[in-house]
């Protein structure tokens, strides 16, 4: 059963994607560690860390795409789960510092010594063990998502209302973690990490290892998402996205389905956060900022909503653009980035992958119709499983939502 479940995840398209990622997972660290610096094929450590960060962002985008692209839940608060995973990892890294902190306290992190905390708060216990922290990386976001989703989906909070309360959630967490009294380092967050599982966090090998770990996590999560979206459950999710109440009348407990992907997605976001923190070297409440969550949605939209490859591509491309713009055009990069969003929306409404596969479909369709003309009298049609096929039928300008009786539905 399990093998058929995973088997479903594979096809040519996924194969290409995984091959590219796999090559990166091998080549980038190798290029950093084994190729001499003088060689043109040497990958600088800076690039390894940067790309490692992109991969964690890609994983976060994948998580958002799973709930939004396939189930129609527009989360404007996914950065919260990302940050919680990051904090769990950060707490582990903090405990690993031991006596190497500036005050040399063997137990208490520096910021606690500094604020005169006498002992470790209870919720910091256990984080000195990696397995515990690793468990918390998925459990804390998972449980929060489960509780939040349990209430929200049962109460049938949908559309923009759901989006806004997810935003309220991340905003509330931002303010809470920002408080120094919470015991998470306040605005400065957790920083000054030394080592991870005994490896020096600043060593090139560790960085290469983290890059590879991020890549592998991305591949595994991609396969899981792929398997889910291609299973019957995936079909139910799309059904929920397109006609929620119809799905209910078929006897599906929509809230259970939503809760399942929502929690899973939060856990994936948590893993992304956990891999992100050791690579950038800091976690602080800024990660909870609502603007971050909105940005993730934008990555997905740019890459192509409802296509897993699109989410990954979008995250990497937008962040690469950001890295480049902030260095090349530091004074006016916001014009470029803002302009990019507007242009993508106007001219690539299905995102990059969506538009490309739309073109691909059009080509195939032409071919199919040629085949049909040759031998069959059935009319040509778009192949299944193609988001582009839906694009064809989107009317250019359907009526705007009506006040009162149909609220705006960002989740469509």
């Amino acid at each position, binding site marked *: 059963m399990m093998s058929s479940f995973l088997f479903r995840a594979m096809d040519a398209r996924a194969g290409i994607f995984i091959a590219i990622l796999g090559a990166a997972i091998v080549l980038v660290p190798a290029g950093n560690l084994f190729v001499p610096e003088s060689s043109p094929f040497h990958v600088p450590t800076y690039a390894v860390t940067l790309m490692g960060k992109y991969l964690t962002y890609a994983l976060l985008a994948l998580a958002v795409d799973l709930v939004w692209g396939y189930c129609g839940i527009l989360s404007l608060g996914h950065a919260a789960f990302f940050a919680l995973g990051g904090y769990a990892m950060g707490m582990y890294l903090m405990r690993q510092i031991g006596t190497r902190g500036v005050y040399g306290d063997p137990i208490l992190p520096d910021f606690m010594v500094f604020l005169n905390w006498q002992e470790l708060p209870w919720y910091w216990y256990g984080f000195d063990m990696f397995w515990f922290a690793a468990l918390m990386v998925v459990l804390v976001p998972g449980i929060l998502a489960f509780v939040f989703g349990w209430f929200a989906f049962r109460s049938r909070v949908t559309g923009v209302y759901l989006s806004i309360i997810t935003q309220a959630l991340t905003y*509330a967490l931002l303010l809470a973690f920002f408080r120094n009294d919470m015991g998470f380092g306040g605005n400065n967050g957790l920083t000054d990490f030394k080592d991870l599982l005994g490896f020096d966090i600043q060593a090139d090998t560790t960085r290469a290892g983290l890059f590879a770990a991020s890549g592998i996590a991305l591949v595994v999560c991609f396969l899981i998402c792929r398997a889910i979206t291609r299973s019957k459950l995936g079909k139910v999710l799309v059904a929920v996205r397109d006609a929620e109440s119809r799905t209910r009348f078929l006897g599906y407990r929509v809230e259970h389905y939503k809760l399942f992907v929502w929690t899973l997605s939060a856990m994936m976001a948590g893993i992304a956060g956990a891999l992100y923190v050791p690579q950038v070297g800091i976690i602080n409440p800024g990660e909870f900022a609502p603007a971050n969550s909105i940005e993730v949605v934008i990555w997905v939209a740019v890459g192509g909503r409802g296509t897993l490859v699109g989410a990954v591509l979008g995250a990497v491309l937008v962040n690469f653009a950001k890295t480049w713009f902030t260095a090349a055009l530091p004074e006016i990069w*916001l*014009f470029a980035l*803002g302009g990019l969003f507007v242009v*993508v*929306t106007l001219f690539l409404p299905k995102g990059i992958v969506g538009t490309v596969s739309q073109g691909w479909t059009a080509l195939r369709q032409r071919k199919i119709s040629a085949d049909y003309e040759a031998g069959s009298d059935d009319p040509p049609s778009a192949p299944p499983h193609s988001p582009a096929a839906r694009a064809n039928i989107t009317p250019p300008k359907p009526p705007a939502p009506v006040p009162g009786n149909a609220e705006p539905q960002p989740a469509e």
Partner: protein
Amino acid sequence: MSFLKTFLVFLCVAVGLAGPAFAQSDPEALRPLINELAKGKYAETEKQIGALVATGNPAVAPALEALGEGKLFFRKSDGTVFITEKAGKSYLLTDPLTLEAAGEAGKREVKKVKVNNKLRRVIRSALGSLTLMAPDPAVRKSAAEAVFKAQDPASIEALDVALQAETDDGVRTVMEQARAAAVLNSDLDEAEKIKAVDTLSDMGNRDALSLLINLENTSEGVVKEAASLAVAKIEKSIAAWNAAQNIWYGLSLGSVLLLAAIGLAITFGVMGVINMAHGEMVMIGAYTTFVVQELIRTTAPGLFDYSLLIALPLAFLMSGLVGVAIERGVIRWLYGRPLETLLATWGISLILQQAVRSIFGPTNREVGNPDWMSGAFELGQMTITYNRMWIIVFALLVFAGLMLVLKKTPFGLYTRAVTQNRRMAASMGIRTPWIDALTFGLGSGIAGIAGVALSQIDNVSPNLGQGYIIDSFMVVVFGGVGNLWGTLVGAMTLGIVNKFLEPYAGAVLGKIFVLVFIILFIQKRPRGLFALKGRAVEA
């Protein structure tokens, strides 16, 4: 200090009895004393002020006033002291005694006589005593208030003289209170002190409380008892007023939220555009106010008090035009794809922020409060600041105006028609694209005039809009999307809840609680406060 006190008494009594005689004496005799002010540090300056006051001559008042305001300068070359007024790069000099113009001096020729807070306090009480008998009741009142703050027993006699001559009841009350304050500090007998306690107890505000608490701690016997009673009484009444104060603060915060959210209630609530650039429309309104004020400052300073009124229509137009441009340029291609409006307007908001940063610079710009929006008045034990009051009034006016436009004008009718059934409206001959553009412009314009009001209480910086966008969405969603009344009630509710939580939980926790409250509330009412029920909802 003590010799100063003695002289003050002398002076006040003397002025009261024979003021005119002094006024006629030769002012030139005072000049060496005034020129002394140019010398020495704060401690010396304090003594010199004392010496000036000791002359008992009201002619020293202008010089002291100028000193307090930091307008007293001395010429470096000869040490002569002048009252100055800045004029471009140089100073206009005025003789401190004759008050006649005395030419000009360059920036580097003159130097300011330094004052600090302590000196300003000394000057304030000195001037208070000097002007207790001034002809203008307003001056007498502020003089009495200054004396009240000084709490100087030496001023009792002067106050008694002034009280006898006083005709204005309002001023008389203040003088009595000032006398009571002074009596508490004096060595007068218990009966006098108890009488003073009564006066202060009637006064009943925080200033009186402060004095009485002090008395309670320092006195003994009957006086202490009376003071304790009075303190208890005042504290009780202040506690009662606190609830009213919290409601007021809540309404005030609510009105700010309402202003921020009301434009969004149109662009998002009515039109369904998830307008992330809404905050930037507010920002444009605030910057328009800044530009208007700059122009007024340079061309017609007299109009400064009207600057906000002038800025209002301009801000509406500016933000409205930008809104129309956004609608025509971007959003009209995106109807029916609300999510993509989020993406595009987010991009637009980045562009607008950076544009403002490039044009006006990244730093805060100064937008002044006109006189009628500065200061505060007391209502019972509540302090009500004028700017907050006007913002509440303004928010309600904007709300009422918007309701009128939407309910009573043809434009409002068309808007409702288009948003309810576009095809039907179009087939009835309504130009729906223009209605879309104008409705979006209206929402943006309202955000612009909100910016005018918010410029009075907040930073005018490129980040202005970002600070309000999340709160605005919360308010609109909490109130129920598409319902203006919901926005009004939502804003006020959130404001008041926040302000009642703040004293107990602190500002940060209070805000967290409000957010959690919104999350829980939406569970209970998944479509906001003013949701429509029935079949239409699922349509």
